[in-house]
Each structure stands twice: as structure tokens, then as C-alpha cells.
């Protein structure tokens, strides 16, 4: 199963690019959060691909990937809590409507 490292990196790069694209054009906050999740996953793929083929201790990439998954899960939890609190106050999750620093 010899897939050269570059192919994994290019795949992860395109995934990351799609994530950025999503984060840029989405008007809905949850849409942006989802795209950030996607970018984090692209980074994970990179980590694992690098650690498997270039590092001497191959499990470091996976350890990093697990830590990234934990941090991403925590960030989604807090992010969505903020979105729900925001929705309760402003009745909308669209980025244009949330432009006052204090309400």
C-alpha cells in the first residue's frame, strides 16, 4: 500500500483550502464552526501522514492528532454554547446581525 507522502499532503492541503473557503463565505456561525472542524481534521491527516513516513518515533503524530481531537471537541462545545446563548438573545445566528459589542 505504497502511497507517496506527497499525495497525502496535497489531499490534506485541498481539504484545508475547502475549510478556509467555507469559513470565509458562510454567513451562519455554525457553518463557520463546521468549516473550522474540517480544517482541524485536515491538519490531523497531515500530522499522521508525516509521523508515519518521516519521524523516527511514528506514534508522536498520532499522539498529537489525539490531542488536536480533544481540543477541537472542547472548542466545538464552547463555541456552540456561545452560539446558543447568542441565539437566545439575538434570535439569529447570522454574522451580519451580531455587530454590536454590547446589546
Amino acid at each position, binding site marked *: 500500500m505504497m502511497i507517496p507522502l506527497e499525495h497525502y499532503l496535497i489531499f490534506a492541503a485541498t481539504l484545508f483550502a475547502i475549510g478556509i473557503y467555507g469559513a470565509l463565505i458562510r454567513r451562519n456561525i455554525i457553518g463557520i464552526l463546521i468549516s473550522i472542524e474540517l480544517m482541524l481534521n485536515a491538519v490531523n491527516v497531515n500530522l499522521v501522514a508525516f509521523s508515519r513516513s518521516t519521524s523516527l518515533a511514528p506514534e508522536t503524530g498520532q499522539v498529537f492528532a489525539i490531542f488536536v481531537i480533544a481540543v477541537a471537541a472542547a472548542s466545538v462545545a464552547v463555541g456552540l454554547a*456561545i452560539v446558543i446563548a447568542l441565539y437566545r438573545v439575538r434570535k439569529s445566528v447570522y454574522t451580519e446581525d451580531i455587530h454590536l459589542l454590547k446589546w
Partner: protein
Amino acid sequence: MELLNLAGIAGVYTLMLVILIAAVAMVTLRSLFHSALALAAVLIGIAGIYLTLQADFLAMIQILIYVGAVMTLIIFAVMLTEHLSHQTVRQNNRQSPLAIAGICAFLFCLTGVIVRTPWPLQPQNQTATITAMELGKAFMGQYVFAFELISVFLIAALIGAIVIARKDK
């Protein structure tokens, strides 16, 4: 037997293609619920990619945490905030052509860098499957401080999320 290997490699590339299509769908779909499901498809696909990279413990963790828990959170949030009346509202702002141009430039120079740099390959551990045993040793050995820190971090995030989302009576 080499036919089987070829089939395997072809399988990996099709999996990558499917993931990219699902990711594009996730970004462009109008209804947020559909894009959340596309994200679930992407996550399961990436777990498949981990399997091809012989990281099966990580693939299972990815499915368990991402598809099992994070997706549920996202779908809960989508359900709580999506009005059916919003279907007609435009989901993305006007800057998509500009964004596409920027992203393509970024992607172009990134792939240029990837292809040109001589990665220091270590061919000897290409086939070693990382089992849970080595990961456990790494967690308890070299990364024990980070391991404890991450649990504190998760508890803090947990309590923070509850405090923010709770209806303050």
C-alpha cells in the same frame, strides 16, 4: 497479488476523491442540516484515511469522538437555531469569487512547496501498525504532562459550555 495492491491504492484515491466531494458539498449546501451530514461523511472518510495510514486506534477514536459526540453537538445546535423560514435566506455572502481566487493561489503555492521539498523519508517504519500499546506508552511516558493538562482543559471547557448555554434563571 499485485492486482490486489493496485485495487487497494485505487481504493485509497477514490476515498480521497469522495472526501473532497463531500467537503465541497458541505461548504456549498444550502440547508445547514445537510452540510452537517456532509461533515459527518467527511469525518468517516478521514477515519478511513487513517486506516490506510495504519493508524487504526486513531481511526476508531476519530469515529467515536467526532462522529459520535461532536456531530451530535453540532446537530443539536443546528436544530435549536434553524428556522424553517430561513431556507430562502442566502447562505453565503457575496465574496465567493474573490475567496475562490485567493484559495486557489494559496493552494497553488502550497502544492508547489509540497512537491519540491525533499522530505527526509524513513522507509523502515512504513508498515509498522501503531497499536494502542505504543500510544499508551507514549501517553504515560513522554507526554504524561500534556495528558494530565488536556483532562483539566476538557473539564474547564465542559463547565464553561454548561455555564454559557444554561438559561440563567
